C-alpha cells in the first residue's frame, strides 16, 4: 500500500509499504477513505517531537471501511464504515473505565519511554512517535486498529466522509476544550489559535452557552473563518495588543475562560517571541509557550484555562504566580475521544453542527508532503487538508476565505 512516511525534519515520502494485518485478536484493519493532516502533525514535521524514526507512517485522523477483523472483535464486521479515534484505548483499565480514554494504561507498548519523559505514560496514539507507542498511522491506504471493539464508531449510510471525519480528533478535541472551561450561560470565552481545534472549540463553546467568543490569531483567513462560522470577535495579535484588547472587551475583568489551542510552537511578536525561539533552538526549553503565557494573564480572576494545544516537554517563564494568586483552574489533556463520539455524532446527524466547514483543501495521498508544506507555511489560506488515499492527482481548494 501507499503510506506517508516521516524521514526527518521537513522530509516526508509517500512510499510503498506492506499492507497491515490483524496481529492481536482485538485488532481490525480498515481501508482508509479519508485522512486529515492535524496541526499536531506539524510538530513532528518540524522535528519537535523526540523518538521519531525514519519510516514511521504518520496520521491519526482517519476513517474508512473495515476489511479485516480479529477473533475478539464482535461489534464490527467487514464492510462497516467507521471513524477511528486518535488515542488507542483498551476499555478495561482503571482510566478507560472512568472514560478517561487518552490515559489508557495498556495501549502504549513503549510506556517506559513516556515514563522517563513525563513520569507516567498515557495511551498510545497512531503515528505519533515511539514515545506514544510507535503505532503506524493513518495517512495510508490501510491501517491496523488495535482494540477495535472499543475505538471506532460506525457512521450512518449516506453521510459524507467530510462531515464525520473530524470525530477522529479535532471536533471532540475542541469540544473537550470547551467543556473544560465549565461554561455558564453568558460567558465570554477567548480562544488563542484559530486552527481546526480552535475553530471547533469556538463552535462547541457556543453550543455550551458562551455568549461572546473572542478569536486570537495572526492569519487573516483563520480569523475570518472564526468570524464567518463562529460569530467570533477577531483579534490579530500582530496588530492589536491582545491583553489590553481583551480587558477592553470585558470591561477590564478578562474573559471567563481562555483556551490555548496553539501548543508548543507558539509565536509572539517582538522580544518575547525571539526569546522563546532562541531558547528552543539552544534546547534550553523544548516548547514555546507564547499562547499559554498570554492566556494565563488574560483570563479573569477565578476563571478557567483550558489547554488542548499539545505540549511535549519543558517551558520557561510561565507566570505561575498569576495562576495561583488569581485562583485560576487549569484543565488539559489529550482528548478522551471515545467518550464524545456518540453525542457528537448525534449533533452532526441532527444537523446542529457540520464540522466540515474547516476544510480548505482536498488532496491525493501522494501529495501529502506538499500538503504538509503548505499547511506548515500557511500558504494558500490553508487551514485543514483532507487526504484521499486511492485517488491520484487530486488537489482541490474547497473554499476561499477572503
Amino acid at each position, binding site marked *: *500500500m501507499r*503510506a506517508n*512516511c*516521516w*524521514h526527518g525534519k521537513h522530509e516526508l*515520502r509517500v*512510499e510503498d*509499504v*506492506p*499492507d*497491515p*494485518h490483524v*496481529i*492481536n*485478536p*482485538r485488532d481490525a484493519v480498515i481501508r482508509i477513505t479519508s485522512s486529515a493532516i492535524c496541526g499536531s502533525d506539524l510538530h513532528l514535521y518540524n522535528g519537535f517531537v523526540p523518538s521519531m*524514526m*525514519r*519510516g*514511521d*507512517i504518520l496520521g491519526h485522523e482517519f476513517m474508512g471501511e473495515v476489511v479485516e477483523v480479529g477473533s*475478539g472483535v464482535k461489534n464490527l464486521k467487514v464492510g462497516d464504515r467507521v471513524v477511528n479515534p486518535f488515542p*488507542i484505548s*483498551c*476499555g*478495561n*483499565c*482503571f482510566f478507560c*473505565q472512568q472514560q478517561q480514554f487518552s490515559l489508557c*494504561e*495498556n*495501549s*502504549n*507498548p513503549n*510506556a*517506559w519511554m513516556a515514563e522517563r519523559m513525563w513520569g507516567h505514560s498515557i495511551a*498510545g496514539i497512531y503515528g505519533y512517535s515511539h514515545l506514544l*507507542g*510507535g*503505532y*503506524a498511522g493513518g495517512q*495510508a491506504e490501510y491501517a*491496523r486498529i*488495535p*482494540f477495535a471493539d472499543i475505538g471506532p464508531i460506525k457512521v450512518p449510510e449516506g453521510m459524507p466522509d467530510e462531515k464525520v471525519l473530524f470525530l477522529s480528533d479535532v471536533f471532540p478535541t475542541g469540544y473537550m476544550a470547551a467543556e473544560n472551561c465549565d461554561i455558564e450561560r453568558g460567558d465570554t470565552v477567548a480562544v488563542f489559535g484559530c486552527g481546526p481545534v480552535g475553530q471547533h472549540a469556538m463552535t462547541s463553546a457556543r453550543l455550551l452557552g458562551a455568549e461572546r467568543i473572542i478569536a486570537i490569531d495572526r492569519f487573516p483567513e483563520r480569523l475570518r473563518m472564526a468570524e464567518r462560522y463562529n460569530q467570533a470577535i477577531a483579534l490579530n495579535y500582530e496588530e492589536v495588543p491582545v491583553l489590553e484588547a481583551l480587558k477592553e472587551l470585558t470591561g477590564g475583568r478578562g474573559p471567563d475562560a481562555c483556551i490555548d489551542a496553539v501548543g508548543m510552537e507558539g509565536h509572539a511578536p517582538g522580544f518575547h517571541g525571539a526569546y522563546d525561539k532562541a531558547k528552543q533552538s539552544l534546547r534550553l526549553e523544548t516548547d514555546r509557550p507564547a499562547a499559554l503565557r498570554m492566556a494565563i494573564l488574560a483570563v479573569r480572576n477565578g476563571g478557567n484555562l483550558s489547554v488542548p494545544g499539545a505540549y511535549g516537554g519543558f517551558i520557561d517563564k510561565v507566570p505561575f504566580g498569576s495562576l495561583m494568586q488569581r485562583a485560576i483552574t487549569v484543565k488539559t489533556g489529550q482528548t478522551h475521544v471515545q467518550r464524545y463520539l456518540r453525542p457528537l455524532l448525534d449533533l452532526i446527524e441532527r444537523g446542529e453542527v457540520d464540522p466540515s466547514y474547516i476544510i480548505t483543501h482536498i488532496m491525493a495521498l501522494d501529495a501529502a508532503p506538499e500538503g504538509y508544506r503548505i499547511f506548515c507555511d500557511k500558504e494558500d489560506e490553508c487551514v485543514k487538508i483532507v487526504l484521499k488515499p486511492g485517488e491520484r492527482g487530486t488537489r482541490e481548494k474547497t473554499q476561499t476565505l477572503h
Partner: protein
Amino acid sequence: MATESTPQGSGQRTRARADVLTGEFQPREAQRQRRRQRQPELWPFEPWLEREQAQRLAVGLGWFSIGLGAAQLLAPRAVCRVVGTRRDHSGLMRLIGLREIAAGIGLLSRRRQGAWLQARVAGDLMDLALLGATLIASPHKARALLPAAAVAGATVMDVYGARTLGPEDGVRIPPGLLRISSSEGLPVLKSTIINRTPEECYRFWHDFSNLPRFMAHVESVQVIDERRSHWVARGPAGTRVEWDSEITEDVPNEYIAWRSLPGSGVDHAGWVRFEPAPGGRGTIVRVQMIYRPLAGRAGALLVKLLGDDPGRAVQEDLRRFKSVLETGEIPTTRGQPAGTRSLIGKAVRLGERHAR
C-alpha cells in the same frame, strides 16, 4: 541503615536465612498480626529502595574515581597546576591516581561497595589535608579553594553511600537459595496495579504455564506437579537455559514464592504478592526476583555493558501481566508496516526481534 547493620554472625545466619524474604520485607508473624488487626501495610520497601539508590551512587562514584585517577596518572603536572601546588608533585599525584583507580575498580566490581566507599572517605580526608597544606603554602590561595570544595562534595556523597550500604553486602536471600552476592545477581523489586481482583491475579500467576505469556525471557514453563515446574529461558547471545523450580510458599490469593532447585544450573528465585488496592480499585501486585546472570561474573559484566537492566525487564514483564489480565492480549506494534528504515532503525528492529 538499620536493615544492613545487623551482624550476620555464623550462628545467626541460618536463622536469618530461614526467613529471609519474610524476615526482611514482610515478617511473616508481623504480617499475620497485621491481617488480624486489618491494618494496611503502607510502604515496607523504603530501606531497600534507599539501598538500591546508594548502590547506583556508588557506581557513579566508581566511574568518577577512575576518571580522576586516570587524569592524575597520565597528566599529573596538569592536575598539580589545577590544584595550585607550588612545586611539581607528579610522583605523589600519580600515587593518589593509583589509589583512585583502585577505589573505582572496587566500586564497579559491585562487591562490598560500602567498604570501598569507606576507603574513599579515608582518601578524601587525606586529599583534604594535602589541599589544606597547599592552601597554606601556596601563593595561589584562591586556586586551591575550588578543588577543596569539590573534594568536600565528594566526601559528603562517599559518607552517605558508605553509611547506607554498610561494610557488608548482605543482599537478602530467599530461603534455600544458593548464596548470591550482589556482584552476581541483583534482586529486583517492582510493582503494578491491576484492575482485577487478587483472586484473578493469583489464579493466573499460579498456573506457571502462563508465565511465558508475559515474561519476555522465559520461553516455556512446564508444570510437573503441584510444586515443581520445568523452565526454559533464553540467555544472552542465543543461548538457552533450563532448570527446575519449585514453589516454596503458597498463600492462596495472596502470595507465591518460588526458587530454582539446587543443582539445576541456574539460580533464580522470586515471590509475588497480591494485595487488594484501597477503595476496591483492583490489586497491587509486587514482585521480587533474583537471577544469577547466566554466564557467571563475566556474563554479568557483559550484560551490564550492553545495558540490559534487570529492573526494567521485570517491570516490563509486570506490564504485560497487567495487559493480559485486563485486556486479554499484549499490545504490540511488531509485525506492522513501516517505510524504509534507517540503518539504526533496522538494527533496533533486529534487536527487538531477537529479544522477544
